[in-house]
């Protein structure tokens, strides 16, 4: 394999470059747009020669958007806050609930466990609206529509199965003898769980938590159906932006950049866990 000709090497490099351009260009271009005024954005031909401005970002952060039609109040920071709150709380709750359950599925072979695992597995690919539409009617009756609690609750549909599947695989890889040894040494079940099982499954818990966070952050349809403007995360909020009349394109671009930065940064920072989680989630489960 190592005696590839230099022509082949060249072709490979060209191909990889093209691939990288296709997949990275949109992010770079939108970032560049976010640093421009409407005037420079609307230039034909488009050019990367411009004086970068941060007005778009400051406008978003202060919530005062100057448009052609005057000043517009758009509280994008509220969307950002909602995204952070919903994602962080959902993942935290999912970890608290899901890690012990994943442990139960991995360690104890019991009928109910098998049934739950099977149900969750078979609904893992069910269409979201199948559950969401009836749920939206129930939420109205229960007064949960447009509440953080209600949203965090339904976000468990995204996070919990993910955590169950990935973490369960990691628990299964821990030798039960290690846990037995710790118990026999004089420790209670709970101590063994917290001092042995959890630390040893930590990479899996980190990977699952990370993926769950990203999935929660990127979710669109749950909040679209169950939340109004003041509780919507950035994914839904940014969409409303586009339709707001007279808005500056640079501001939309800046909103997109702000919205995708957390997940992209997390992905780059913890890519090892992420790749492991993705392939575990898909392959190892």
């Amino acid at each position, binding site marked *: 394999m190592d005696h590839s000709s230099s022509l082949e090497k060249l072709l490979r490099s060209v*191909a*990889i470059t093209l*691939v*990288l351009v296709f*997949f*990275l260009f949109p992010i770079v*271009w*939108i970032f560049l*747009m976010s640093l421009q005024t409407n005037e420079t954005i*609307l230039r034909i031909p*488009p050019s990367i020669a411009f004086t970068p401005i941060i007005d778009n970002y400051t406008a978003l952060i202060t919530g005062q958007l100057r448009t052609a039609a005057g000043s517009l109040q758009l509280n994008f920071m509220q969307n950002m806050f909602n995204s952070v709150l919903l994602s962080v709380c959902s993942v935290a709750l999912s970890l608290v609930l*899901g890690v*012990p*359950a994943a*442990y*139960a*599925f991995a360690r104890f072979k*019991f009928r109910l*466990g098998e049934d*739950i695992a099977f149900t*969750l597995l*078979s*609904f893992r*690919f069910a*269409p*979201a*609206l*199948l*559950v*969401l*539409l*009836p749920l939206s009617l*129930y939420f109205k009756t229960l007064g949960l529509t447009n509440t953080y609690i209600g949203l965090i609750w339904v976000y468990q*549909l995204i996070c919990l199965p993910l955590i*169950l599947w990935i973490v369960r*695989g990691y628990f299964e*890889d821990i030798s039960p003898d290690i846990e037995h040894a710790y118990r026999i040494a004089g420790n209670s079940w709970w101590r063994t769980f917290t001092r042995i099982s959890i630390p040893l499954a930590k990479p899996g818990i980190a990977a699952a938590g990370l993926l769950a966070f990203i999935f929660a*952050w*990127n979710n*669109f*349809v749950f909040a679209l*159906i169950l939340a109004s403007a003041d509780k919507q995360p950035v*994914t*839904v909020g*940014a*969409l409303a932006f*586009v339709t707001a009349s007279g808005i500056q*394109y640079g501001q*939309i671009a800046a909103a*997109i950049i702000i*919205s*995708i930065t957390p997940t992209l940064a997390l*992905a780059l920072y913890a*890519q090892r866990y*992420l790749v492991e989680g*993705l*392939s575990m989630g*898909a*392959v190892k*489960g």
Partner: protein
Amino acid sequence: MTAAATEMRTPVKQSRFMRRALPYILSLPALLMCIGILIPFFTAVYYSMLRYRMNLPAMKGFIWFQNYVNFFTDPKFWNTVYISLTYAFLTVVLELLLGLGIALLLQRPSRFNNIASILLLLPLMTAPALAALMWKLMTHPDFGVLSYLLTLVGIHDFKWASNPDTALFTVVLVDMWVYTPFIMILLLAGLRSLPKAPFEAAALDGVPRSFVFFRITLPMLMPYIITATLFRLLDSIQQFDIIYAMTQGGPGDKLLVFQVQAYLDFFQATNVGRSAALMVILWAITYALSNVFIKQWLKLRERAHGAH
């Protein structure tokens, strides 16, 4: 020693009940979650058998399978089926080919290849709805950079998602941008986990590379390919975010895939019965597909665990 031992004996009884109940207590949240899924699911099935329009509450009534029967003669329904299947087929095939190609390019674990594969994660980490917005900005008729680039090769007035003829192409492109890296990562992991021996033997024997690829690499990679494909297929046939954010199902009825149609039926036409029936049909399709899928998946999972 014996004295110390006897003294240590402070029998702390643990209740047998607690011991037996432990697995059930631990899995209680998961159980509640199941119930939380199953109740709306059965409600949806029930709704799908109702004549239920929220704007005409008086008409509400149980009509058995009439909603489903109506679909047979409903061209809108068949349009939905056609669009959904086309979308799923196109995205999966294109993403698979492209993802496999990229995985093969990046197969050798060099520093550059590793950095490239990490950078390729970024589109996958972008919320699909936001990705659609990004492409909307890039394909804008007034200032879209892609529209401009097309004029350089002599294509003028390319309308992307707002033209019925190119709308499908546009959303498929966005889908490819977001999800090709997913297939790439899985196949890359698969490629790198293949045993070395067959390849070394083939290289020694001077076997042509196309033969190596089709007779060794591809068959050994097949479980990964099948897993990645089914994963994507199940997702793609239910795509909502990209299409809704891009065109809300338009122009016209061009992109009314299952979930978008059900969403519009529910919230715009307020036809709960029809919306629920659509979702139940989509669920049946995905359920059948996922059964095939889960079998494959468990096989692969077993293998992955065995390799540990």
